[in-house]
C-alpha cells in the first residue's frame, strides 16, 4: 500500500470499494446538479419584484421579522393536541426503590417509623414543588430486586411490581392523595410550621383519580381494608412469593399505622398549630373551628 500522504484516503476508498457491489452503468450516480438560476419573468405582467436581487437595492424589502399574509400566526399551524392540558396535569417526580433502600441502609431514613412524603422530603435528597403541580412521589421499579427493607410506606403513585416488592418483605404500602395545600405543608415542614398557620384539612381526591385512590389493587387509602387484605394475597399469588403474616410481626402496630383521610401528618391533626419556638402544639378550642376540621 502507498505510504503516508495523499495515498491514504485513496487506499481507504479503494479498500471500501472492494466490499461494495461492482460499479456498473446501472448504479452510477453523479453529484447533485447545480441549482437552476432564477428565471426573470418577462412579458406584459412581468411578475413581481420580490425575490430579485435588485429588490434589496431598491429598498422595497419588508422589514426584518415581518410576517405577511392575512392568516394570523396563531392559526397558521395545526394544533398539537397531545399536549392539551399539560399545564393542568398532575406531575409525580420519580423516586426509585434503589434510592429508598440506599437511604435506609445509610441511616438517612429510619424504617422503624412509617415512611411518607414528609420523611422523603426531610432527607433533602428528594424534592417536590407543589407550585409546579407536583402531587407527590412516583415510586419506580428500579432496584426492585435488591429491595430488602420492611417498611410502612405511603406514596402517591406507583406500580403493581413495586407494591409486590414492598409486601414480599413483610411491609405495607398505601397510595394516598394530598391536595396542594397539604403538599405545601408537607414538602417543607420547617418553613410551614414557622409560618404559624394551622395544619390544613386534607381534601378528598378529585374525580379523575378517585377511582385510583379507592382501588384495593393499588392499595388506595380510600379502599375497603378487607378488600386490601384480599388483594395482598392475590398479588402474592400472581407474583409467586410467600406473603409474610403482618399480624404476627413484632412491628405490627407500626406497619398498620394509617393516616386519617383528612390528615396529612402522622400524629398531628388538622387545625392544630405547631409552635416551633416554644416547642408546643396549639389546639383549637372553639367548637365551630373544631367542627370545621373534623374528619
Amino acid at each position, binding site marked *: 500500500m502507498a*505510504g503516508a500522504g495523499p*495515498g491514504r*484516503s*485513496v487506499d481507504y476508498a*479503494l479498500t471500501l*470499494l472492494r466490499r461494495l457491489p461492482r*460499479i456498473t*452503468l446501472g448504479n452510477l450516480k453523479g*453529484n447533485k446538479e447545480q441549482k437552476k438560476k432564477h428565471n426573470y419573468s418577462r412579458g406584459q405582467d412581468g411578475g413581481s419584484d420580490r425575490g430579485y436581487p435588485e429588490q434589496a437595492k431598491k429598498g422595497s424589502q419588508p422589514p426584518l421579522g415581518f410576517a405577511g399574509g392575512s392568516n394570523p400566526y396563531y392559526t397558521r399551524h395545526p394544533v398539537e393536541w397531545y399536549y392539551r392540558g399539560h399545564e393542568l396535569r398532575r406531575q409525580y417526580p420519580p423516586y426509585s426503590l434503589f434510592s429508598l433502600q440506599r437511604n435506609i441502609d445509610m441511616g438517612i431514613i429510619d424504617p422503624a417509623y412509617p415512611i411518607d412524603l414528609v420523611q422523603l422530603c426531610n432527607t433533602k435528597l428528594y424534592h417536590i414543588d407543589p407550585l409546579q403541580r407536583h402531587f407527590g412521589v412516583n415510586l419506580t421499579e428500579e432496584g426492585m430486586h435488591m429491595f430488602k427493607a420492611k417498611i410502612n410506606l405511603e406514596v402517591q403513585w406507583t406500580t403493581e411490581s413495586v407494591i409486590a416488592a414492598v409486601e414480599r418483605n413483610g411491609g405495607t404500602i398505601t397510595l394516598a392523595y394530598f391536595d396542594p395545600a397539604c403538599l405545601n405543608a408537607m414538602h417543607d415542614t420547617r418553613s410551614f410550621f414557622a409560618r404559624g398557620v394551622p395544619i390544613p384539612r386534607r381534601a378528598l381526591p378529585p374525580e379523575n383519580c378517585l377511582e385510583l385512590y379507592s382501588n384495593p389493587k393499588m392499595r388506595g387509602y380510600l379502599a375497603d381494608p378487607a378488600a386490601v387484605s384480599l388483594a395482598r394475597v392475590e398479588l402474592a399469588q400472581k407474583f409467586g412469593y410467600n406473603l409474610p403474616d403482618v399480624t404476627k410481626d413484632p412491628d405490627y402496630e407500626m406497619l398498620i399505622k394509617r393516616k386519617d383521610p383528612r390528615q396529612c401528618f402522622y400524629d398531628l391533626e388538622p387545625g392544630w398549630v405547631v409552635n416551633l419556638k416554644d416547642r408546643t402544639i396549639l389546639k383549637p378550642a372553639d367548637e365551630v373551628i373544631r367542627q370545621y376540621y373534623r374528619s
Partner: protein
Amino acid sequence: MIIRPVLLKEPSPKVMMHKTGTLLRTVFSRSWLAESIRKPALLPCAGTISRYTASSSSNSALITDRQLLYPPKYNTPREAWVETLGTLEGRKVGLIPLHPDIFAEFPRIDVIHENVKWQKLYQHVDYAHQRTRAEMPGGGRKPWPQKKTGRARHGSIRSPLFKGGGAAKGPRGPKSFFYMLDLQNRAKGLKCTLSAKFAQDDLHIVDSFESLSSPESQFLEALAAKRNWGLSVLFVDDTDFMAKNIALACRGLPSFTLMPVYGLNCFSMLKHETVVLTTRAVDKIEERLKRVDNLLRQNDPRHAR
C-alpha cells in the same frame, strides 16, 4: 467527424478486428485517445516486450520486473498478477507493478458518471419535430367572418387552438446534444474507472492474446467461467490487429469484445463485467495517461515557474 480505423497495408497472419469497428467509429471517434492513431511514431514498438525481463520464447521465466516509463515520485506502485490464456485455469506468469496514478486513483464515481453521461449524450440527436402554424399547409383564409356569426373570432384553421393546428413551442428537431467534456475529466474518468475495476478485482492482466490456445468460442467462454470473469469481458490490446485465435473466439460471443487501447472508454469498461488488458496495453495506457497528465500540468498556470 468520422475517423475510420487504420487499415493494415500489407498482408498479415493476424486478422483485422472487425467486431468493434462500428463501435469505434461512433462512440470513440471523439475520444482524445483517437489522436493516438495520427501519431504512430510516438507509440512504443508494437509486437515487442523489450521492457520486460522475460522473453516470449521461454514460458517458464517469470515476468517480475517492469520499468515504469514515468516512475511515481511519492506513491508506491500497485502490483498485479500476469496471467496467461493457454489453459482454462490459467497460470500466473508474473507479477508486475502498476502506476498508482492510473490504477490507484481516487475512485471518483461522479467523474465516471460525467464521462458516461457525456458518451451517451454527445452522439445523441433528438429528432422529435413538430410543425408550427406557419409550416402547416393552408390556413391562410379566415374560417368565418369576424362578427355576427355568434362564434369565437379566429383567423386561421392552423392556429394552435385548433384541432389539427400547428404546435406552439413544440420540439424543433433535429437537435444535437453534442458537447465536449474537458480533457482533464476525460483522462480522470479513465483513471478512476481503471482504478475501480482493479480495486474490485474486475481487471486482469495477461501476457498477450496470442497465448490463447484455441479459436473455439466454447473454450474462451469456459475459460472466463473458470476464472470468474463473469458474463461479459472486454479484451484490450495495444493494437487493433488482434491475434487470430481470440478474434475467432470472440466472433461468436456477443458479450466478449475486443478493443484497442485507443478505443478504451469508461462506458465500455463499465458495460463489461471484466476488463482484460495485455501487458502491452498496460504500457500504452500508462504512457498515454501520464502524457496527458504532464500536458495538463504544463498548461496549468499553478505549476508555471
